Each structure stands twice: as structure tokens, then as C-alpha cells.
């Protein structure tokens, strides 16, 4: 009881706040400003002289393109000018504050038969031209522009911007929308009639339902508006729910579109639900949340959509089934007003499916997310790049193909083109996709309609594709019919063009197929290739105008031209081999009971899984080293457990030593039995097998229980080695399970890891924490569905990182769904006490990120040391900037490879000092993304490269014996790591180190708090001090450090600095 009350209360609080932000302020002052402005418009229109002769010369381009014949008329004053739209019933939602002015066209200007052949549309336009001309003369009006009614270019309207502004400097504008109440006889405009004579097939006139609806809409606009206004007036809850729904819809660019939802349609649907025809589903005693829920539920689940929504003024069914069927032939969705006109005539089937899908997602947000899904529903932007797995842009600017059959017949050419693209893609990707959405917002604000319609193709056409299952989507072959079915085979060949081939299958079947062959790691490219093929085949579009966002970030994961993830097969085989050998060992005191992988390469989430190394094979296997054999080899950690025994020492140190002794024994007997060589230090034993170096670790369960007892005694954050191993084992197996469920998880994690380290955050965010953050995207995807492409997943990762409210909520990653409500409570309790601790002790650099999992309910495992609050802020800023950049690169035409690279190129001006390293002294020089250079700041130091370390075996070494070469091999040798370690040991307070563990050649240094405070006082002396210590830092990395620069970047300018450096490259 109690919990529910607060739960809704906090939701309510938030909704109130949101409404405050979104509602327009209807104070007397602003009302007066608006009314005055409307009056001045009316006055300006009133001053237009009567009987002005109007001809096509006012906008010859438009009249020509629309194909109207007789258009001359004498200007008369409009019948009436009324304020309409949501403003009039106080439901206008910010930031789009506008006032609709309904301008009723006078009957005298039109002939009875003007509904034919676009005469009405042309005259309507010319009438507005006159008005525009006269409005421009008024001094109170800043600007008059054209816009189009729901993206319908044949129905433009005027947007008038006032010189005045509302209180608080808020902008508003007035839309002048012509209406044609009772201009024509409605029966002439019924669906079956043809009113565009040029639309015929071999002399037979075809029905023009869309054209007719377009005129009918204007005729009934005022009446329908009146009905909505009557419903909403004085019903506060309903109005507020409408505003919330508008906010909800506007956050979703895929449904707030011309072929789906508009503010007016939302209000119509709500009015329907509140009316008698809608069985009064919404009634007065309901509160806002209830109304919201009922409306969404109706949209998502109601069966009435299959029959159409009908407003019946007298409550009786006056529409026959025959009529209904006719309507459904023309339109997929029907919301019929009391005059028999379909208000939803623009809605497309895909748009409607998308709407229902979004509505049902919203319902699950309300049920499943905290605070009633407030953030997910209203605050999260769901744009194309984040929502769809694959986005494709078609640049159709200047493409004549689009309007080759004329601009407007029954439908406009752009809508026809949308449908054509949709049907091609639907057919090409049949079975692969869940939903394909094609939207072309071609008629934007900026267009100049007088010059004709051919310029309305500046915006790119957007295609969004959601994928059902990876397995289906990445199939390499499209199966066609057998060649015996001639008609079908011909059709198949026609559709697929030169891609269609005949194949003989193993089971004896012969069939037409279209095949796209790719390696396992490159399968995501198949969709791109299919789309490019069919679009260029059917629409004769050049390939450079089809921009599909699929593989643009792959460069960051490659070595040369190969994705190293393809080595994983070898790796897993080698691991099996190892565990087989280990289990077979019988000459060690305790037998090995289990072998478990720990390294991220085993779960396919490592950015660079190592390739097999020619010198890491068993003695018996001779593999000849090739050129460019790496000197260093990454060891892969493997955890083993031994049989239980009571003879283990109790002492911590002694236990570790015993473990080492065991490991050495294991190494020795592996060597003796199978010739598997190994190398050891006091702490680690590395075994060379099948081209890999495996680092063995022993988990001793009793050590675990020892720690748990200690843990109670306030030694909380220090995990013992056994506990660490245990946690890593748990993490590894859970993530591996998750990866099995979501094949795209691996690539997304790899991109995320690459991004984090490319921006020098290797020290701040551990690999495992990144894995958990990405896991969260898949496990709690709402308001989306789990991502199915690497770029979408990566974008959502960046947004999560930048938007998550870490200071007030714990991130709970429940991988297998086995957290009980008690667990949740425990986690929240831990989080709260953690926060309290943080507040009590502000100097304490306590963890800022609370990530809880089943195996780690107190967030001790991965984020207890880093990131600190400051690091997290920096991370979030970078993530926000990168996310913004990624979004724009997906949506807009700035697509060349250099721009994509910007995502991983970190600005080096946000540090106090930067150390550049010798690139050829990095252990894996080929992993470097971009060589860093600095041309600012002051060069402090230059160091010569060491000659004793080479990242690749020299040709001279290759001629030596295998034994000698093996001695040259260095396991886990990483000068960068040693260097960072040395700096942190020598200057623990002075410098904060930022670096890229994946092979960057730059290290950023920022001054610790202490030195920066001092710096204010005596600058000169301090400066010298800094230079000296930077030199000392350089000395620590002798032979490795190339240059050190002192930049003195001021701390508070971080954000702008980064943004600027990103935009600099634009």
C-alpha cells in the first residue's frame, strides 16, 4: 500500500513538473500580445482591395507543376478569420507555440466545379499568395513563410512570425490555414469518383480517393475542430493528458510524421474515446495518468481499428458494411467523422503499425520502469538512429525519376516514391525484418513554393529497419522458386537482376537464389549490400546516393583489413585443448576439477582477441614464424579449481605461495607429458599452447570464506585475490551467457571499449564495467527494443553514459533475471548507504558509479575505485558530445570516412600536459588508431627511442633456432602499463593520468587538486616546479617517451574545448 502511494506520488510530481514546462502560459499579458497580433493580421487582410484580379502569374511554378487549368478569379475578402487549433482550448504544447487561424475562403472566388483537376488547390494557393503579399507590408510582422499542411505540398499554408515576443522571450507564430467550408458538394467528392481527369489507364478514369480527401479535409476542418474544442473545453485532465501525449509523440520522430500521428489526430482519438460513439471510455472522474493509459491502451490493443473508428452523432450505425469495405480498400486506417470523411486518410500501414508498436512499448514502460516510465516515455529522445537497427539515407536531390509521372495525380509523387521504396525493401528483406519505415520529410519550412515543386527534394529520404532475429537477418542466401515454375522464376530474376543464379543444393533441389557470401564476422554487411543492390537495380540510383549506416565504425576494430574476432574460433579450440590437458594431469597432488575462462577474449568482447602466435605452440608442432612476428604476447587468464583438501595453509601469504607452487608443478608436468612449454614468475604461470599463452590462476574456495568473514569487519572495499577471481569467474560466465542470447552484444561492447580507451579513459572505466553497461542496454532496453546492430547499440551506450542519473540511482544489471525483490531492496539499501557515506565525506574520492549485479550487490567489483565523480563527469561530457556527433553523422549528409573517425579521435587540448610516446615502441603498434601530434603548448622534453625493445622480431632473430626465438617472446610485456604504474607510484597526488590501454601513443596528465590550488599563488615558481616534475616523469619513461608538452588547459573549459575540437573538424 505504502509503497504504491509514494510510487505514484513521485510520478505525479514529475508529471506536474513536466506539464509546467510544456504548457503554454495563458496569462493575460501573453494572451494580449497574441490577440493583438492576430488583430493586426486580420486588419492587414482587411485592407486588401476587393475584386483584385488574380492570375497564375503570382505563382506560375506551383500552378504549372500541380497541373491546374482555369485558375483566374477575383479576390474577395475571406468569409471569416477565426482562432482555432489547440491554442484555443489551451492545449498547445511548448516549444511549438502557435496559433492556428482558420481563414474561410469566400465562395465567390470559386466555381461549382473547381474541385476538378486541382483548380481548388491552385486557387487556394493563389489566394494565400495575395495575402502573403499584403501581410509582408505590415510592420508588426517579421516574416511570412510557406509551410505545407502535414507535408502535403499541394496544400501550403502561411506561417507568420511576429516582431513581438511573449514574456520570457518565448517565440510564437501564427499559422494561416485556409478552410473551404461548404464550398463544394460533398457527394461529388466521395471516394470512388475521379476528379483528376489526367489520371486514367487506357481511357478508363480511376478513382482519386486521396485527392478527394485532401479537399474534403479543408471542407470539414472547422466543423471537426469545433467538435474537438467542445470536448476539451473545461476538462482539465483531458487537456493535460493531450499535452503529455503530444510530448510523448514528439519525442518519437518515427510516429510524429505526416503518414502517422499529428497533434490533431491525437486529440481526435481522445475525443472519440470520450464520446458516446467511443463508449465513453474516458470519463470525467479519471485522472491524467488514467486517461493517458486508456488512450495508449486503445491505440495499442483495441480491435476497433480493424473495423474503423466512426463518430455517430445520433448513436446509431448509419454506415453500411459495404461502405466500410470500400473505405478500407483506399485507406489502411479509418477514423471517420460524422460527415463520412476519413480523418486518418494520410496514415500509412507501416506508420500505423509503428504507432501501435510504440504505444504498446509505452504501456510496458508504465508497468515496468520506475516512476511509471516517466523518463522513458517523455524524456528520452527516440530518433531514427537510436530506434532503428539500420538507417539508410537516400539523397534524391535533383533526381528526376521521382516526378517523372507528374508531381500530383491522386497522390503526390513523393508519397508514391516512399511507397515504392518501401515495397522494394520489404520484398528484398522479406523474413529478415520486423519493420521497415520510410519517411521523406520533403516539404520543410524553407521551401519556396512559388517556384514550383521540383525543389522539394532537398531533404534526404530516411529508411529505418528493425530486425527480428540476427539469425534470419544475416542469412546469406535468398531462396527463390525452382526453375520449373517459370513465371515465378522469371519474376525472381526480374527482381534480383544479375544477383539471381541457379544453384543445385545437396538435397538434390535446384532453385533460383541470390547469394551474398561473407565471413562470420562480416555478416552485418549483407543487409547493406542487399539494399544497395535492389535500390540501384530498381530505382537506378547511383550507389553514392544510397548511404546505409552499417559498417562505418568497423575500421576501429580491425587489424589491417581483417577483423581479429575471426581468430576466436582458434582461441576457443585452444582453450578446449588446454582444459582437456589439464584435466588429464594425474601426477599433481590435487587433481584439477574445473577450468574456466576469465579473459574477455573468450566471451568475444575483447577489442583485439589475439591471433595465434607462431612461437606459442607446443614443441612438437613446428610453425614457421613469418615476417612481422610480434615480440609480445597477450596472456589469457584461465581460472582453475582443485580438488578439496584440508591441508591448505591458513595464512593468506602462505596460501598464495602454495598456489604458485601448484601452478609450477602443473607447468612442469605439462612440459614433461606433452611438451607444452611454460614460463613463470613468482605470481604467474603462463602456458604456451596452440598459439596462445594461457595464464593460470587457482581459485581456492576456502580463501573465499575467509574473506567473507573479514568483510563483515568493515574491510569492505578491499577484495582478496580469491574473491576477485571468484567475481571475475561469475562475471565471465554470465556475460558469456548473455552474448549467446544476443549475438550483437559482442560487437557493441567492442566498439564501446574502443571508444572509452580511445578517449584515454582506460584508467577510469574498467572493461567489465563497460560490459555491464552494455548488458544493461540489452536487458533493460525500454523504451526501445534490444539493439540489433552495432552502431545503434553503440549510440545507445553513449547516451546511457551521458544521461544516466548516477547520483540518484543504482544501475542494476540482472543478467539472468534472478534478482528477487529482496535482492533489489538490498541493492537499494547498499546504494543509499553508499550515497550517505559519500555525502558525509566529501573529500573521499568515493565511487560515483553504482553498478550492481547478482554476484556483486554492493558494487564493489568493478566501479569501487573508479570512475570518481570528476572522471564520470568528464566521461559523460565526452559521451554526450560523441552521441550528438554520431547522430548527426547518421542523419545528415556529412558522410565521409574522416567524419566517422572523429568519434575515436580524442582532443588532446583538455589536459594540462600531454606525453607522446614512441609509436614503434608500443607492444602492438598496429593497434594505434591515429598517430597523435601536438602543435600547441610548450614542448618540455624530447626523448630518444630505446634500441633494446622492438615490437616485432627482427629479421636477424628469425634465423635463429626456435629455442632462441622463444626466449625472445615476452609475455604480457607492456611498457605503457609499466610507465603508468611508475608515474602513479612516483607522483600519486600530483598527476592524474589518462591513457589508452589499447595502444594509443598519447598520455594525458592533469594536475591533481593540490598542485592546482597552489598554482594560483606564485605562478612562476610553481611553473618551474611543474616543468621539473614533468621532466622527472619523462625520465621514468626513458626510451619510451617521445615528447612532453605542457598545455595548461584550464579545467573549467573542458566541455567547450571538446565540443569545439569536434566541431572544428566539421
Amino acid at each position, binding site marked *: 500500500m505504502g509503497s504504491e502511494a509514494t510510487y505514484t506520488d513521485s510520478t505525479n510530481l514529475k508529471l506536474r513538473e513536466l506539464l509546467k514546462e510544456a504548457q503554454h502560459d495563458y496569462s493575460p499579458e501573453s494572451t494580449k500580445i497574441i490577440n493583438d497580433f492576430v488583430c493586426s493580421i486580420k486588419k492587414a487582410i482587411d485592407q486588401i482591395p476587393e475584386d483584385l484580379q488574380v492570375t497564375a502569374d503570382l505563382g506560375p511554378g506551383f500552378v504549372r507543376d500541380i497541373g491546374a487549368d482555369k485558375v483566374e478569379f477575383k479576390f474577395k475578402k475571406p468569409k471569416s478569420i477565426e482562432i482555432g487549433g489547440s491554442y484555443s482550448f489551451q492545449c498547445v504544447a511548448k516549444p511549438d507555440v502557435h496559433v492556428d487561424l482558420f481563414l474561410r475562403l469566400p465562395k465567390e472566388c470559386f466555381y461549382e466545379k473547381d474541385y476538378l483537376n486541382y483548380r481548388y488547390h491552385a486557387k487556394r494557393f493563389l489566394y494565400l499568395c495575395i495575402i502573403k503579399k499584403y501581410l509582408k507590408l505590415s510592420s508588426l510582422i517579421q516574416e511570412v513563410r510557406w509551410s505545407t499542411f502535414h507535408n502535403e505540398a499541394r496544400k501550403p499554408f502561411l506561417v507568420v512570425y511576429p516582431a513581438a515576443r511573449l514574456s520570457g522571450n518565448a517565440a510564437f507564430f501564427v499559422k494561416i490555414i485556409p478552410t473551404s467550408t461548404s464550398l463544394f458538394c460533398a457527394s461529388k467528392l466521395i471516394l470512388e469518383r475521379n476528379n483528376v481527369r489526367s489520371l486514367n489507364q487506357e481511357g478508363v478514369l480511376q478513382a482519386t480517393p486521396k485527392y478527394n480527401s485532401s479537399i474534403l479535409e479543408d471542407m470539414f476542418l472547422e466543423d471537426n475542430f469545433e467538435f474537438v474544442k467542445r470536448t476539451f473545453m473545461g476538462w482539465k485532465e483531458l487537456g493535460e493528458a493531450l499535452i503529455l501525449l503530444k510530448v510523448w509523440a514528439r519525442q518519437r520522430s518515427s510516429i510524429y510524421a505526416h503518414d502517422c500521428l499529428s497533434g490533431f489526430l491525437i486529440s481526435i482519438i481522445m475525443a472519440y474515446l470520450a464520446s458516446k460513439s467511443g463508449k465513453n471510455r474516458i470519463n470525467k472522474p479519471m485522472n491524467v495518468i488514467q486517461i493517458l493509459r486508456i488512450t495508449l491502451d486503445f491505440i495499442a490493443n483495441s480491435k476497433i481499428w480493424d473495423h474503423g473508428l466512426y463518430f455517430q452523432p445520433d448513436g446509431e450505425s448509419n454506415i453500411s458494411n459495404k461502405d466500410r469495405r470500400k473505405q478500407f480498400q483506399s485507406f489502411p486506417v479509418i477514423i471517420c467523422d460524422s460527415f463520412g470523411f476519413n480523418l486518418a486518410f494520410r496514415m500509412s500501414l507501416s506508420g500505423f503499425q509503428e504507432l501501435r508498436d510504440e504505444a504498446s512499448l509505452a504501456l510496458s514502460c508504465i508497468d515496468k520502469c520506475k516512476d511509471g516510465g516517466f523518463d522513458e516515455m517523455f524524456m528520452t529522445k527516440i530518433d531514427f538512429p537510436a530506434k532503428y537497427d539500420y538507417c539508410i539515407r537516400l539523397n534524391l536531390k535533383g533526381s528526376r525519376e521521382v516526378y517523372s509521372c507528374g508531381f500530383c495525380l491522386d497522390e503526390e509523387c513523393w508519397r508514391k516514391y516512399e511507397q515504392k521504396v518501401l515495397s522494394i525493401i520489404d520484398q528484398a528483406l522479406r523474413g529478415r525484418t520486423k519493420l521497415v519505415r520510410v519517411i521523406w520529410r520533403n516539404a520543410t519550412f524553407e521551401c519556396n513554393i512559388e517556384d514550383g515543386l521540383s525543389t522539394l527534394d532537398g531533404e534526404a529520404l530516411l529508411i529505418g529497419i528493425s530486425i527480428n532475429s540476427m539469425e534470419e537477418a544475416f542469412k546469406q542466401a535468398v531462396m527463390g522458386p525452382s526453375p520449373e515454375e517459370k513465371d515465378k522464376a522469371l519474376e525472381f530474376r526480374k527482381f534480383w537482376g544479375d544477383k539471381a543464379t541457379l544453384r543445385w543444393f545437396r538435397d538434390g533441389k535446384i532453385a533460383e537464389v541470390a547469394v551474398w557470401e561473407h565471413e562470420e564476422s562480416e555478416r552485418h554487411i549483407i543487409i547493406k549490400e542487399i539494399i544497395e543492390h535492389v535500390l540501384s537495380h530498381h530505382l537506378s540510383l547511383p550507389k553514392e546516393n544510397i548511404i546505409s549506416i552499417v559498417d562505418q565504425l568497423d575500421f576501429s576494430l580491425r587489424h589491417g583489413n581483417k577483423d581479429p574476432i575471426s581468430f576466436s574460433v582458434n582461441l576457443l579450440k585452444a582453450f578446449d585443448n588446454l582444459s582437456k590437458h589439464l584435466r588429464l594431469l594425474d601426477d599433481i597432488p590435487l587433481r584439477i576439477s574445473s577450468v574456466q575462462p576469465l579473459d574477455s577474449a573468450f566471451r568475444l568482447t575483447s577489442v583485439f582477441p589475439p591471433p595465434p602466435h607462431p612461437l606459442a605452440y607446443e614443441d612438437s608442432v613446428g610453425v614457421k614464424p*613469418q615476417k612481422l612476428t610480434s615480440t609480445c604476447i597477450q596472456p589469457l587468464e584461465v581460472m582453475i579449481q582443485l580438488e578439496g583438501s584440508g591441508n591448505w595453509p591458513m595464512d593468506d601469504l602462505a596460501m598464495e605461495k602454495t598456489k604458485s607452487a601448484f601452478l609450477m608443478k602443473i607447468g612442469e608436468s605439462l612440459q614433461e607429458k606433452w611438451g607444452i612449454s611454460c614460463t613463470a614468475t613468482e605470481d604467474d604461470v603462463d602456458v604456451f599452447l596452440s598459439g596462445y599463452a594461457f595464464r593460470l590462476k587457482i581459485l581456492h574456495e576456502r580463501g573465499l570464506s575467509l574473506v567473507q568473514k573479514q568483510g563483515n569487519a568493515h574491510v569492505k572495499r578491499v577484495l582478496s585475490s580469491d574473491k576477485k577471481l571468484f567475481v571475475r569467474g561469475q562475471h565471465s560466465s554470465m556475460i558469456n551467457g548473455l552474448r549467446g542470447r544476443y549475438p550483437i552484444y559482442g560487437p557493441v561492447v567492442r566498439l564501446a571499449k574502443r571508444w572509452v580507451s580511445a578517449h584515454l579513459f582506460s584508467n577510469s572505466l574498467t572493461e567489465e564495467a563497460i560490459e555491464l553497461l552494455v548488458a544493461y542496454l540489452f536487458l533493460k532496453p525500454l523504451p526501445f527494443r534490444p539493439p540489433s546492430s552495432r552502431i545503434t547499440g553503440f549510440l545507445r551506450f553513449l547516451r546511457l553514459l551521458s544521461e544516466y542519473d548516477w547520483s540518484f540511482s543504482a544501475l542494476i544489471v540482472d543478467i539472468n533475471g534472478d534478482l528477487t525483490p529482496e535482492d533489489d531492496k538490498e541493492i537499494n539499501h547498499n546504494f543509499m548507504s553508499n550515497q550517505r557515506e559519500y555525502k558525509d565525506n566529501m573529500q573521499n574520492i568515493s565511487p560515483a558509479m553504482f553498478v550492481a549485479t547478482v554476484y556483486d550487490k554492493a558494487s564493489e567489483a568493478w566501479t569501487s575505485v573508479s570512475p570518481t565523480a570528476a572522471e564520470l563527469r568528464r566521461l559523460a561530457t565526452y559521451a554526450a558530445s560523441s552521441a550528438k556527433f554520431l547522430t548527426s553523422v547518421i542523419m545528415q549528409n556529412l558522410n565521409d570516412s574522416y567524419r566517422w573517425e572523429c568519434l575515436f579521435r580524442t582532443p588532446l587540448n583538455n589536459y594540462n600536459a600531454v606525453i607522446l610516446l614512441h609509436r614503434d615502441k608500443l607492444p602492438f603498434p598496429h593497434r594505434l588508431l591515429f598517430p597523435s601530434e601536438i602543435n600547441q603548448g610548450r614542448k618540455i622534453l624530447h626523448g630518444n627511442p630505446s634500441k633494446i625493445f622492438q615490437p616485432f622480431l627482427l629479421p636477424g632473430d628469425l634465423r635463429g633456432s626456435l629455442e632462441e626465438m622463444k626466449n625472445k617472446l615476452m609475455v604480457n610485456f607492456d611498457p605503457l602499463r609499466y610507465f603508468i604504474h611508475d608515474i602513479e607510484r612516483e607522483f600519486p597526488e600530483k598527476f592524474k593520468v589518462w591513457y589508452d590501454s589499447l595502444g594509443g601513443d598519447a598520455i594525458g596528465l592533469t594536475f591533481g587538486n593540490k598542485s592546482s590550488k597552489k598554482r594560483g599563488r606564485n605562478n612562476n615558481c610553481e611553473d618551474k616546479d611543474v616543468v621539473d616534475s614533468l621532466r622527472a616523469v619523462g625520465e621514468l619513461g626513458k626510451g619510451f617517451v617521445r615528447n612532453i608538452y605542457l598545455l595548461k588547459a584550464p579545467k573549467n573549459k573542458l566541455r567547450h574545448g571538446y565540443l569545439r575540437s569536434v566541431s572544428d573538424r566539421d
Partner: protein
Amino acid sequence: MAAEDSHKKMKKRKHTKKNIEQNSVKENSQLPESEVDFYKRNKDKKNKKKYSEEKGDTKTVGMSNIKDESDAPGGGKKKSKKLRAEKKKNDKIARAEVNDVGTPCNDEGQDEFSDKKETSNEAGECKMQKSMKKKRKNAKTLDVSEVDKLDNEGEDAAEQKNDEEKVGATHTEHEDLMASFRGLSEAETSRSANARNSKKARKIKKKDRLLVNQSSQENSVEKKGEAEEYEVYEMSSGDEDSSKGMKKWITEYHQSRPGLKVLQERIDDFIAAHEAQEEQARREREAKAAEGGWTVVVHHKGRKKTSDAESGTVVGSVAQAAVLDKMAKRKNKDAGPDFYRFQRREAHRNEIMMLQSKFEQDKKRIQQMRAERKFRPY
């Protein structure tokens, strides 16, 4: 096509070339020392006489160097240009060597090609040699300038400038090396592509060099200015000093891997010492107990011991299980958390308190969000 042919030939020649290089490397084994000398002298610039001595020392290094030096005094004033020129000379020498070994190349493009190839091959091993050449060059030119009676300060600056340019030169060499790494790794997939790549690379390098040549004059002016403002600290590669940097890391790496035998012995020693220590402690305890006929009760830290002190029976693993078992049993006997009414009341109150505090926190958070304009949906 011809270029490709010569490319293949070059690859064959590489091996013979390498032998020569290795020889020169051996000869250069005394280099690090002299480099340090040089480095010190950089700091202590007034000791100029030593330069000539050093020049004498290093004369023995390589055959080609003599040629260089004989050419050197020609351009004493424009050092930067001379450096470039010298580099070219080196190339020429290299080319000449190649021509001696293999068939002569007529085409200029081919010449260019072969000498580029040479530099990238040499880069690894010959770098040392080259930088040494340049240093000697510096010394030489300085001598000349002394003859020219330039004043000391100007000379310092000039020297520094030279150093910086040398830095630039080594940079380009590094990049060449890296480029060749990349190129070669790609070459694994296609050889012909490699040929094309390296052709391109050559062109780019050529351009680069031209650019450098053009800009070197301007740079030198600028750098003079900079150099007066502050000095760039020059750091040696540190290959002779194992207390810091790369050398230290490599040494430590090798030291930490003395081999299985040694490690095992160390561990055995440790365990033996550890056991002896424990034994000692046990004896002392027993002795204390025996002294006065009393058993001294000592607070026992940590877990229960595995073996009983008196009898020596092993109880470890059994005791562990038993204790856990016992604990579990005892827990069951305890009264449940909602057994007494006051407990229930307390729990209820706690819950309400929790909810209240959570609500308060929510409110606070909403206020904070409002301040940050987090509720603006646009």
C-alpha cells in the same frame, strides 16, 4: 612494371645488405657511450674543443662516413639545408652500394624507389648509425662556424635548432618504419597491392621531404625564437641505465622469470621458513604453558587451526563443515524476525521510514532536476 621487378630484386638483396648492416652494428657497439658524451656536451656547450676529439674517435665507424666528412665543410652557413643535403648524400651512398651489388638502375624513378626501400630496411638497424652521422655533422659544422667567428649565443641557438631538426628527421624515420610495418602487414594479402602502396608512399614521402625542405628555413627562424624563450630538455634513450624507463622494465621482466627451478626453490624456501616460524611459535606457547603449569589462554585471531596442538590430529576440513552446519542449525533455532510483536512493529516502522526518506530524496532530486531544466522535453 620495371619498378616492380626491381622491387623483387631488392627483396633478394636485402639479406646480403643485412649482413653488411650487422657488421656496422657491431662496429657501433661503442656508440651509446659516445652518445652520452655528446649529450653531456650539449649541456656544457663551452667545451668546444672536445668536439674535434670526438670527431676523431668516431671516424673509424664506417666507410661511408669519411665521404660525408670530406663533403661536409662545403656549406658552413646554411646548416639546415646541409642536413638535408647530407641525408640525400647518405641515400646516394646507399644507392651506390646497391648498384654495386645488383644490376644498375637507369630510371630515376627506380633509383628513388631503391633508395627508399633502402632507408626503410635500414631504418631499424641503421638508425643509430645515421643519427651518429648527423651528430658528427653537428660537431663539424660547429667547428666551421667557429672558424666563421659567429658569436657564441647565436651558435647555441643554431645548435639547438639543429637538434630539433634531427628530431624531425628521426621522426620521419619512425614513420617510415611504421608505414613499412603497415604496408607489409597488408602485403600478406596481396603483394602487388603492396608495390602500389609503396609507390604511393614514396610519392608522399617525396612530397613531404620537399615540404620540409621548403619550410625548414622558416622553421629555423621560428625555432630560434622559441629556443631563446625556453629550452627543450633532451633525454637519452636510457639504454645504458637500468634504473629507469625501458631498460628497467625489460631488465625487471627478465629478472622476474629466472626459470621454474629457481622459482620452485624460492617457494620451497619460503614455505619451509614459514613452517619453521609456525613451529617456533607453537613451541614457545607450549613452553610458556609448561613453565608455570598453567595454560596461557591467548586470544586466537583468525580461523580455528587445522590440527589440534596436543594430539596433532587433523581436524581442519571437518571442523569447517561442522561449524558451518552448526551455524545453520543455530540460526534455525533463533526466533524469526517477526516473532515478537515489537519486532513486527519495528520492521513496519523502519519500512515507513525508508519510504519517507526515499520520498524526500525523490523530492530533492526533482528539485535538482528542475534547476537543471531536466524536465524540458525539448
